[in-house]
């Protein structure tokens, strides 16, 4: 069916089209989509009702922001914050609101500007010496009071050691829901935050809603969302907020911060990851992985089985209980591909898998699979890369 009426271009005041009679002056009416009608439309004798475009350009609503907690350590914004700002932009556009970042620091030093360049429309800046390093009690107090003052719809934290410490504490204090470790965030038709997360070791994905409480809060895994290109010309507002904390609010004392005890594994930012699994046979098997990784300038990943067996440090673990990664290239060597591992790497741009078992589930997510003996294929690969 189409909705038509006689157009001003029609010389007649009445049209009989295959038995259907239309009169000039009548409003749009439903007619069947038949050849006579189509022809009359093509001739311009009939006017078709166009779907009204929904371009009521409403002003962006103030105050109901999509807020990102801008985790800062050593005066540097964590990478995941920029990823979350990219996602926040998308969510805010669907909700017709602004994005905002909440930044706690002792000194701004251009951090607010950086947040704006990565997608924050507004930065709530809390500058105070007591907020230099993360502390559960101080940060919870300040952020909870602020969230009670503004009307944020959504708050997202990185699912980091800090984000997973403060998120639940804040959720309990201001009585709202919090969904952990989200790998997908979207807005439903009703304007609710649709939070997708793995459960049961990645065997199942669950979509969670928080219907009756605001703000709707999530922690989201690093490495899952794409950050926007940095744009220094972006304009944003920096709001200095008074900080209402004192030393009396400190319930714990940080005696020391020790860094770089072990070589830092940077799986989050890696462009290439070479990962080893149980197929390596023993701890020494990782020597092959190391050699290949160093030739490719790659980071080393590992399956949970190898970590549990103590072959390699937990920092290398990729998967539901380890890190979620999406490098440009992921090479899985001797990894069968348990769901819990796939959950952490299946969004990599290009996946190459080497395994002797043709039915290994890793081949379900691999772009290129090699069914064969890794102890033959990998040395050959190393040899050819050296040339």
């Amino acid at each position, binding site marked *: 069916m189409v909705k038509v009426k006689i157009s001003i271009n029609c010389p007649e005041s009445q049209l009989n089209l295959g038995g259907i009679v239309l009169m000039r002056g009548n409003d749009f009416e439903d007619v069947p989509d038949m050849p006579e009608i189509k022809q009359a439309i093509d001739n311009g004798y009939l006017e078709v009702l166009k779907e009204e475009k929904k371009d009521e350009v409403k002003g962006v609503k103030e105050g109901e922001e999509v807020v990102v907690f801008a985790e800062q350590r050593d005066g540097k914004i964590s990478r995941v914050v920029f990823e979350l700002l990219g996602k926040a932009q998308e969510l805010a556009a669907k909700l017709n609101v602004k994005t905002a970042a909440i930044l706690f620091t002792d000194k701004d030093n251009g951090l607010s500007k950086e947040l704006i360049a990565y997608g924050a429309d507004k930065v709530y800046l809390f500058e105070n010496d007591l907020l230099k390093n993360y502390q*559960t009690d101080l940060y919870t107090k300040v952020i909870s009071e602020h969230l009670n003052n503004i009307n944020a719809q959504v708050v997202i934290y990185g699912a*980091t*050691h800090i984000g*997973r*410490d403060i*998120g*639940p*504490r804040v*959720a*309990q*204090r201001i009585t709202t*829901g*919090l969904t*952990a470790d989200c790998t997908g965030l979207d807005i439903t038709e009703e304007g609710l935050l649709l939070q997708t997360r*793995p*459960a*049961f070791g*990645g*065997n*199942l*994905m*669950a*979509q*969670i*809603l*928080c*219907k009756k409480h605001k703000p709707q809060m999530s922690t989201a895994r690093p490495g899952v969302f794409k950050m926007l290109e940095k744009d220094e010309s972006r304009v944003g507002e920096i709001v200095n907020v008074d900080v209402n904390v004192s030393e009396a609010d400190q*319930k*714990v*004392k*940080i*005696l*020391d*911060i*020790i*860094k770089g*005890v072990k070589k830092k594994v940077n799986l989050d930012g890696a462009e*290439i990851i070479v990962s080893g699994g149980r197929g390596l046979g023993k701890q020494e098997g990782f020597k092959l992985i190391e050699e290949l990784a*160093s030739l*490719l*300038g790659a980071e080393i990943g590992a399956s949970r089985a190898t970590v549990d067996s103590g072959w390699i440090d937990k920092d290398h673990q990729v998967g539901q*209980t380890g890190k979620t990664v999406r490098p440009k*290239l992921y090479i899985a060597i001797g990894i069968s591909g348990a769901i819990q591992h796939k*959950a952490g790497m*299946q969004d990599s741009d*290009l*996946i*190459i898998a080497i395994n002797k078992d043709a039915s290994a589930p890793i081949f379900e*997510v691999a*772009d*290129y*699979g*090699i069914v*064969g003996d890794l102890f*033959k*294929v990998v040395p*050959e*690969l190393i*040899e*050819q890369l050296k040339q």
Partner: protein
Amino acid sequence: MNIIVCIKQVPDTNEVKIDPKTGTLIREGVPTIMNHDDKHALIEAVKIKNKVGGKITVLSMGPPQAQEVLREALALGADDAVLISDRAFAGSDTWATSNAIGSAIKAIGDYDLLLFGRQAIDGDTAQVGPQTAEFLGVPQITYAQKIEVEEGKIKVERQMEDGYEVIECKLPCLVTCISEINEIEYPSLRGIKQAHREKEVNVMSAEDIKVDKSLIGLLNSPTSVHKSFTPSAKGQGQILKGSAKEVAKKVVSLLKEKELMGAF
């Protein structure tokens, strides 16, 4: 030193399988275990007790069969065990769960130290510990990789992504433990005997722990599951065939083509 350790019975997620027809979890025949991080928390409690003396109470929330993990905890050295079990708790999210656990801790009473595992392997949320701490109004330290008890306070190494922090906190406080904190131990024969013959699991209802009913259960939970589904598999890739030499050559040319030869 009175220590309450919170533990959870979980399905062994390594063994969980999906029904390919319905896309739902097959739970039958899946073994249940004491959650790993929780077991480490319990072992840490036993170590602390051996050093400074005191009493360990293990607490769990779940169906009646969760008594199994509490028995295991008794065998590992806990003195008392409490299971809170009630239809009214069913469907609780982390917020509602922490309200129930927090109320149970209040009902148990005297405590200096609350130990939790960092997270459970079925949900992986890591939220119940901090939310319980907030419910009780005690400080929290998460991701503990080392605990030292001193007079009236503790010193904890809190793991960070790139190292660790050393944090001092007055008691009472709540600490969540990661697996790096100690080595797994197994119950002694004597422990197992005691757990089954001399010790009891105290089962308590929502009524018993005097929890506000508006803070627990499915309907009072702020979050709800909208839908669940099995992760989608990517389209089948291509299998490279040939000798080791031939497939290696194909991979190298693939990497060149995609400009992925990082180090060169």
